[in-house]
């Protein structure tokens, strides 16, 4: 009896082992949850987004190249008027312009922090970027609405709403993202590269331009792409200053509408399952796909950087 008991006890896994399994299982469940969640998001948005094309039989080409957005109406051929081109153009417009404006500032700040004033400059600009990150997007939108829009209206005429105002708001919003990632990539450049260049008699700027920035190019490009992804998906700040008129932008100061602004303002006004609603989900699908594309580009650049400098 006693012997059996010992045998059973010895064969049984200890309390620690059971705890170990238990803990491990919990962690696996958590990570599994996140993975399943991403899968669900991709599935649900895609399945709603393609309804425009499967249920309402809108042609993809027509959707992407049409310039009339009026999902409730039919055009002269009896097709729904769902041309998303104005929103796609505006979204890309503000994204690319914001990235173009933000990049020199971000690189300037990153160079300042890593090459020119590594101690005090870094401390100061670190807090600057943290503060900029911390400001919520509605506050950016509010300041844009009450400062930038009237200024643009004053200088360029028109309503003041439009791509220009959107760009000016977005560039400040993506600046911290681009800066901090650029700083990381500049820091990753080995010190002996700089020492070698300076020892050859190069000035600091020559070293920065020809050695440091060149080596860090993949990292800086990644930073810019991340910034663009943020700009492309930003909703409320842009929505408040873009004007929300679904028109093909004729100039930088004409009111227009981005994918995100159209979604935030309209989805509550439509009924689930109708043409108008499906068309909006298709816009969400475009956003989702673009975010995947940005991810892919970041990966491609990362691989290119590895091949270029590590082999």
């Amino acid at each position, binding site marked *: 009896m006693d012997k059996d008991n010992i045998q059973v006890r010895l064969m049984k896994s200890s309390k*620690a082992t059971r705890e*170990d399994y*238990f*803990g*491990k299982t919990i*962690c*696996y469940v*958590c*990570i599994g949850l*996140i*993975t399943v*969640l*991403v899968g*669900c*998001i*991709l599935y*649900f*948005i895609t399945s*709603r987004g393609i309804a425009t094309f499967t249920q309402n039989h809108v042609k993809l080409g027509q959707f992407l190249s049409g310039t009339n957005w009026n999902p409730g109406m039919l055009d002269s051929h009896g097709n729904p008027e769902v041309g998303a081109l104005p929103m796609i153009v505006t979204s890309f417009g503000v994204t690319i312009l914001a990235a173009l404006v933000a990049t020199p*500032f971000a690189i*300037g*700040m990153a*160079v*300042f922090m890593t090459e*020119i004033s590594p101690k005090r400059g870094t401390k100061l600009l670190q807090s*600057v970027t943290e*503060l*900029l990150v*911390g*400001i*919520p*997007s*509605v*506050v950016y*939108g*509010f*300041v844009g609405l*009450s400062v930038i829009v009237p200024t643009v209206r004053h200088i360029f005429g028109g309503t003041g709403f439009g791509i220009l105002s959107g760009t000016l708001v977005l560039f400040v919003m993506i*600046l911290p993202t681009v800066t901090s990632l650029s700083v990381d990539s500049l820091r990753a450049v080995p010190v002996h590269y700089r020492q070698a260049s300076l020892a050859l008699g190069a*000035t600091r*700027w*020559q070293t920065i331009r020809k050695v440091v920035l060149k080596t860090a190019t993949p990292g800086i490009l990644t930073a810019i792409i*991340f910034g663009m*992804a943020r700009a492309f*998906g930003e*909703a*409320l700040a842009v929505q*408040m200053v873009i004007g929300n008129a679904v028109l093909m932008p004729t100039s930088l100061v004409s009111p227009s509408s981005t994918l*995100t602004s159209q*979604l*935030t*303002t309209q*989805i509550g006004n439509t009924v*689930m399952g109708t043409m108008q609603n499906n068309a909006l989900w298709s816009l*969400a699908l475009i*956003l989702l796909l673009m*975010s*995947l594309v*940005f*991810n892919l580009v970041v990966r491609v650049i990362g691989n290119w950087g590895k091949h270029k400098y590590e082999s």
Partner: protein
Amino acid sequence: MNPKRSNQIATGTIFGLVVIVVLILIGLIGYILFNGVPNISWHFITAEAQAFSAGGGIRDQLFNSLYLLILTLLISFPIALGAGIYLSEYASDNWITNVIRTMIEVLSSLPSVVVGLFGYLLFVIKFGFGFSILAGAIALTFFNLPLLTRQIEESLRTVPNLQREAGMSLGLSSWKTVTGIILPAALPGIITGIILCAGRVFGEAAALIYTAGQSAPVVDYLNFNPLSPTSFLNPMRPAETLAVHIWKLNTEGVTPDAHQISSGASAVLIIVILIFNLGARALGSYTYRKMTATK
């Protein structure tokens, strides 16, 4: 151009760019505080919002923001902790880990409006929650998870491997090592991470417009029964947060003093987030000093 000259010009340009950014930041914060702080009063913080007349406050919105923040952290912290432990302690370097990391990256780069719409589709409509704090908290959890997971993973990774080896050599199981040695050592980093995420959640609006809703029904702050529809604790009631309130006032609001209220509310938002950021640093270094022998 001679190299010395171009060196000077480049340095000057970089200085100029940095100065411009610093000025933008000062202008931004200055504008918000300068316009907003005079509007903040005890009345402003404790009065109900008014839709059609001037003189409304932000009491309900402020409470909703805080309540939503707490719920979000309650849901997202355990999941992020488990996922963070998995990624830093258990994940081996193979394709599954790669897929998981890609998934987390994808989730973190999804626009918050898409996450909000997913929450709207699944919880508000499919599960029939309606516009509710719970739906909002879950949507914010989705939005918060990747960042929090990464923060936790990174702070776990900064714990030196010697500590893990020490735990193992004492005969502890790996779970005991994690909970008894690694987690306490990583605690300062985790706390900082949580508070920084809290700041982000507090200011988020795009994911909430169609999940937590845009209305703030009158609630009774003395009704502690979370199942009662008028209770301030009821998670199934619609709740407009401070950030959503600012957005709404500026886009479709008809409130006469919308500008003053938005200025005041923006200032409150910024101040709370500044407190979070400073608190994150202070609390992080305080726990670090408490938990380790460093002075």
